């Protein structure tokens, strides 16, 4: 079974600062990778996903993530955060075969101060 590690439990930033959230997974085969966001009081929404092709993936709201296969990583980035980016962020992984069973990381709470 695969596991997913998110390095930061809680990140506090000021507006306009850059954000990078780490995500590593342990699985030897081909994977599909996701970042989900959960705004306060809301359900999970997909930020971006990687299935194949260009390892630099662009998502909604100015987020991007880079898949580095050799490092088993899929880090999320945003050059300049806004107060509205305050949320919890989850990395999730599924093997490309039987690719419907997601494994989630523990999540990173991001607080952006105005």
């Amino acid at each position: 079974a695969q596991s997913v590690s998110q390095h930061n439990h809680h990140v506090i930033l000021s507006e306009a600062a850059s954000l990078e959230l780490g995500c590593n997974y342990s699985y030897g085969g081909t994977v599909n990778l996701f970042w989900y966001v959960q705004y306060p009081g809301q359900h999970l929404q997909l930020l971006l996903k990687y299935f194949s092709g260009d390892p630099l993936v662009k998502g909604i709201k100015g987020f991007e993530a880079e898949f580095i296969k050799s490092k088993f990583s899929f880090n999320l980035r945003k050059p300049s955060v806004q107060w509205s980016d305050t949320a919890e962020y989850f990395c999730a992984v599924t093997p490309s075969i039987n690719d419907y069973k997601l494994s989630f990381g523990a999540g990173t709470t991001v607080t952006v101060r105005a």
Partner: protein
Amino acid sequence: NAGVTQTPKFRILKIGQSMTLQCTQDMNHNYMYWYRQDPGMGLKLIYYSVGAGITDKGEVPNGYNVSRSTTEDFPLRLELAAPSQTSVYFCASSYSTGTSGHEQFFGPGTRLTVL
């Protein structure tokens, strides 16, 4: 198109009571899932279904049961509620586009407290 809907939004149960969490999707997705979310633990898969009449256990199935009699509905049953089942429960659904894999769509969640 409502997506994935869940009822109730909140519920308080006493130890030993039973209840059913409802989940419905109107996107004609074959795959449906139940997760629980606990602080600092991410989401854990309880049960999933790959189509009507087919269900299987996830990572943390103990204390729960599911059924899938239709494509749209995937209720989660707690028979004897325990304090350890205090959590936020999310239902999700997905479809496979073949080459593009699965993308899961989540409901708004049910916050359950067992006292």
